[in-house]
């Protein structure tokens, strides 16, 4: 019989408090999962709520249909002028991400002290309090030992709340080592535009007004940026414009283009300079932008130098110098041999492109520029936009529109002596050394060299890293030469990973902190440009939280600041208390308030009518939350003509801006620009270093041993490498031309397959000087003979149930970054992904 008849229903469902007492009552202790009846009845109601997708860097403003705190579908946010109602397939995969059963649900700590690929970390759950306590102790121990610089913060993807964790926290702790992912993104893509037109940024492409698109190694219908917008308008775009795609692979965009130019990897510089040569010799340049010969007679003819005084430039600088130094012998005939393209096709495309001037554009993606000699490829391809007057023009390439979001309070007064001394140390990525000019915006040593941080850590050069935090990143998977990161991370005595999904980086971590999903569980904001507008779009916690997760960039630093304060170091918390609610002046009292106030503060000029600066007129914070997005004013075409942020204010074919930067870097190291070129693996000497020019492509791997050139590309469904644990990524993998559902395949031209004795479905091993991977082969005419192609995103060995064939042991396919060696485009600091290596292919029997 029941021993205690007095146990009421209320007692039975009452949570935890009674557990101790309940033990004595044996079978009648209360339930833990449920609370008391609150009288509610189940009702169902749904609402479209705005947020932002970060499945790629389009950063589309979207709306999630949320039913009782649970998002069930996605559409574009019609309030956005950038993407409007359009979304792409990637955004829907986010639903599988947020509800992934393999997500990190609670803080966890490692119980196996040994670290390495073969050491299972044996994680166990811990409380937030214990986790933060441990991290705070580690940070304080560094500070107390005068080693605050040995703290490192690694940032992967981010929102613009990033500086709270990335910048302010790192500085106030006292470390120079906030290492962003930018150099494994596409910094070299910004190099050309900066050193020609003073724009260190991605461009907008005015597709609706263009008449000719020459697309270099970009696949706008598949990946990055404004994919959803382009997908929605592309049919109309093709009605108006001729499209040529330069890519060794038959990309999605190539499949819908008028011309496909399957160029030999890395030969883009030859094609670009030959097109420039045709444009000049045939007199096809756009005179309103570039100017003309004083007497109107074209003197550009093959092999002949031109007198600079004979040409009067308008909004450009150094055209004749460029011709004399580089272009005069760059004939289509010469380029045909180097590029593997027919001479007629080169001439045809040059004429088509120039005839549409100024409503024509060169669209330059990561393909031709994230290469060892990619800096000048970036310049050479972008310089064509200058010749046809496409820069800043209708139907051409545009800068982002002006927007008015702001930053956060400065850290200065909260940096104590330890911090001030700490930040003076050299950074762990070795940027700024002779071999790493890393010249962001013309300043030597200003750009991150993300992938080289692994070398810094391994060599303890300039010193060892003792405590590190990584967030929204997985460098052990996403950086080429990934094996180096496995060793580097194993070497860090105390590593914390803030993440939604445990990954290869977590494997080497001591503590994992569960992070909210960027699209459904976070306050933040993002900025992106397209369609002639910039939008600033909110990320909102539209979902009810399923697990005990916190926001990476705001809530976690706040909680850590609180811990540090409890332990006697209050500077960070005092700084964060400055982030007051701009509406009420209230000081944040908890992590949720902090996250919200920080966001309101940073976006105030967009939503506060009292501080209106431009663009959409929004009537207060609540209105902003409701709309989810602010749009800039329309694009001011040609405003920058003659007012570019270059040394001369003009579009520089002879880059005084680059000359100044390279000279500054050489002077810093007491050497010459020629020497800088040499250590950075460039062939240019003398004046050639200051103009867009051709460099012979180079990639690791001797051709006799590694006869194929490697072609990497991005899958349409890869949410920056974070889709691999979602079934839809695999089920619909064949939406990428050449890919196969549920398989990780390398594409091989059937001609090569026949020589190798390989057929579709065979398991193959692909090897480079850096490593080997295994995957399936797929014979495909869409890949140039002599090359092997494969999309990025598969090959996880520690990500989750779907991502690996056997967790911790057998990946599903291969990670491209195992075989891509750690190489750099050193002038920008960018990591090399394309034309990155030569490989051999063997059938696995």
């Amino acid at each position: 019989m029941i021993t205690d008849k007095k146990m009421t229903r209320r007692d039975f469902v009452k949570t935890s408090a009674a557990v101790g007492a309940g033990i004595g009552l044996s079978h009648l202790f209360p339930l833990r999962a449920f609370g008391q009846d609150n009288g509610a009845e189940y009702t169902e109601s749904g609402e479209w709520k705005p947020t932002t997708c970060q499945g790629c860097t389009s950063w589309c403003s979207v709306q999630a249909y949320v039913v009782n705190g649970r998002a069930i579908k996605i559409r574009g946010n019609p309030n956005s002028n950038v993407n409007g109602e359009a979304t792409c397939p990637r955004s829907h995969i986010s639903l599988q991400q947020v509800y992934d059963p393999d997500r990190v649900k609670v803080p966890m700590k490692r119980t196996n002290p040994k670290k390495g690929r073969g050491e299972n970390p044996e994680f166990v759950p811990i409380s937030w309090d214990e986790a933060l306590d441990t991290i705070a102790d580690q940070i304080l121990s560094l500070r107390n030992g005068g080693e605050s610089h040995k703290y490192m913060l690694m940032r992967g993807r981010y929102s613009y709340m990033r500086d709270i964790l990335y910048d302010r926290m790192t500085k106030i702790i006292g470390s120079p080592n906030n290492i962003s992912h930018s150099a494994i993104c596409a910094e070299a893509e910004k190099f050309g535009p900066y050193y020609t037109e003073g724009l260190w940024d991605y461009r907008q492409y005015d597709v609706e007004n263009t008449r000719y698109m020459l697309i270099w190694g970009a696949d706008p219908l598949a990946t990055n940026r404004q994919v959803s917008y382009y997908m929605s308008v592309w049919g109309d775009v093709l009605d108006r414009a001729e499209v040529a795609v330069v890519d060794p692979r038959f990309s999605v965009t190539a499949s819908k283009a008028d011309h496909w130019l399957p160029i030999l990897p890395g030969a883009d510089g030859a094609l670009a300079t030959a097109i420039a040569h045709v444009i000049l010799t045939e007199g096809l340049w756009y005179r309103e932008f570039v100017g003309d010969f004083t007497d109107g007679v074209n003197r550009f003819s093959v092999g002949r130098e031109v007198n600079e005084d004979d040409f009067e430039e308008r909004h450009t600088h150094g055209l004749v110098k460029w011709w004399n130094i580089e272009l005069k012998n760059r004939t289509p005939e010469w380029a045909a041999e180097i590029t593997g393209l027919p001479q007629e096709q080169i001439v045809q495309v040059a004429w088509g492109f120039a005839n549409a001037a100024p409503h024509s554009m060169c669209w330059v993606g990561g393909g031709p520029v994230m290469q060892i000699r990619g800096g000048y490829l970036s310049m050479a391809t972008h310089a064509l936009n200058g010749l046809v007057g496409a820069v800043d023009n209708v139907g051409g390439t545009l800068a982002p529109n002006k927007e008015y979001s702001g930053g956060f309070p400065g850290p200065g007064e909260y940096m104590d002596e330890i911090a001030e001394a700490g930040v003076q140390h050299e950074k762990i990525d070795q940027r700024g050394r002779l071999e790493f000019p890393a010249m962001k915006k013309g300043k030597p040593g200003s750009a991150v060299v993300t992938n080289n941080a692994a070398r810094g850590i391994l060599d303890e050069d300039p010193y060892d890293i003792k405590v590190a935090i990584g967030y929204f990143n997985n460098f052990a998977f996403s950086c080429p030469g990934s094996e180096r990161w496995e060793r580097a991370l194993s070497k860090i005595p105390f590593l914390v990973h803030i993440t939604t999904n445990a990954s290869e980086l977590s494997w080497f971590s001591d503590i994992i902190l569960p992070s909210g999903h960027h699209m459904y569980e976070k306050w933040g904001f993002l900025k992106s440009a397209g369609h002639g507008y910039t939008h600033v779009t909110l990320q909102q916690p539209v979902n009810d939280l399923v697990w005990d997760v916190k926001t990476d960039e705001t809530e976690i630093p706040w909680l850590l600041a609180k811990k540090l304060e409890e332990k006697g170091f209050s500077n960070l918390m005092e700084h964060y208390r400055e982030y007051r609610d701009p509406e009420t002046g209230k000081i944040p009292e908890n992590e949720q308030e902090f996250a919200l106030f920080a966001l309101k503060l940073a976006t105030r000029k967009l939503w506060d009518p009292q501080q209106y600066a431009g663009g959409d007129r929004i009537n207060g914070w609540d209105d902003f939350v409701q709309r989810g997005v602010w749009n800039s004013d329309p694009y001011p075409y040609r405003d920058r003509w003659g007012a570019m942020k270059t040394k001369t204010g003009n579009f520089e074919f002879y880059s005084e801006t680059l000359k100044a930067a390279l000279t500054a870097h050489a002077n810093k190291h007491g050497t010459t620009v020629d020497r800088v070129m040499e250590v950075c693996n460039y062939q240019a000497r003398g004046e050639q270093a200051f103009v867009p020019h051709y460099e012979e492509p180079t990639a690791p791997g001797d051709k006799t041993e590694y006869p194929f050139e490697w072609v990497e590309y991005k899958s349409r469904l890869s949410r920056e490498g974070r889709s691999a644990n979602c079934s839809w990524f695999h089920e619909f993998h064949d939406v990428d031309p050449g890919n196969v559902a549920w398989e990780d395949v390398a594409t091989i031209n059937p001609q090569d397959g026949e020589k190798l004795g390989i057929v579709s479905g065979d398991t193959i091993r692909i090897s480079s000087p850096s490593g080997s991977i295994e995957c399936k082969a797929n014979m495909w005419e869409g890949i140039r003979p002599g090359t092997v192609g494969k999309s990025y995103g598969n090959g996880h060995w520690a990500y989750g149930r779907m991502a690996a064939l056997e967790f911790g042991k057998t990946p599903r396919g291969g990670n491209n970054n195992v075989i891509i060696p750690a190489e750099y485009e050193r002038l920008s600091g960018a990591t090399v992904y394309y034309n990155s290596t030569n490989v051999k292919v063997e059938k696995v029997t």
Partner: protein
Amino acid sequence: MAERGEEEVAAEVNLVSRRVTAYRLLADCFYPPDKNLLEKLRGAGEWNEARFSSLVQCFEREEGIESLAVDAAKLFIGPFELLAPPYGSVYLDNSRVVMGESTIDAEKLYINEGLNLELKETPDHITVELEFLSYLNFRQLEALKAADMESADGYRNKQQAFLNDHLGRWVFQFTKKVKDFSRTEFYKSVAVLTDEFIKEDIG
């Protein structure tokens, strides 16, 4: 079934009481292990003693709580591949996700029973579903003691419906994974016991 004698009712009270405790204890076994768990298992009560005593032994044989904690984490929490996902929707919905349609259906049932989920977990987490069955049995017990046979039968029917529509449809796939992947005898035994008990209850 509504009409029964005193002895029958006493036997039923006995049986339902056992179920109240057993579901509750089984649920406890799927939370991260702690010392309280051992105490609870030891005090399983005379009706369930035989069943749970083997678990007590397995628990005691472990050198410390850590080996159980590591095993439980790999099976039910992560952070990498969940070896035995403790979520109904992973088995019942089409794609491998939490918070699926079946999850919401379970949540509806709780709310309609006047229960409010306070655990930071999904409504179809194994612990939640087991506790819900404990609760439905508790209600049945209350009704029996109040001699409200109609209500008692109603709660029995709800238990059966919940087993048919939810827990019973996935729990055996789940316990198979626990048996296959656990590295401790404790969790293997928990899985075996869960199997046996629920099979018996389904009848």
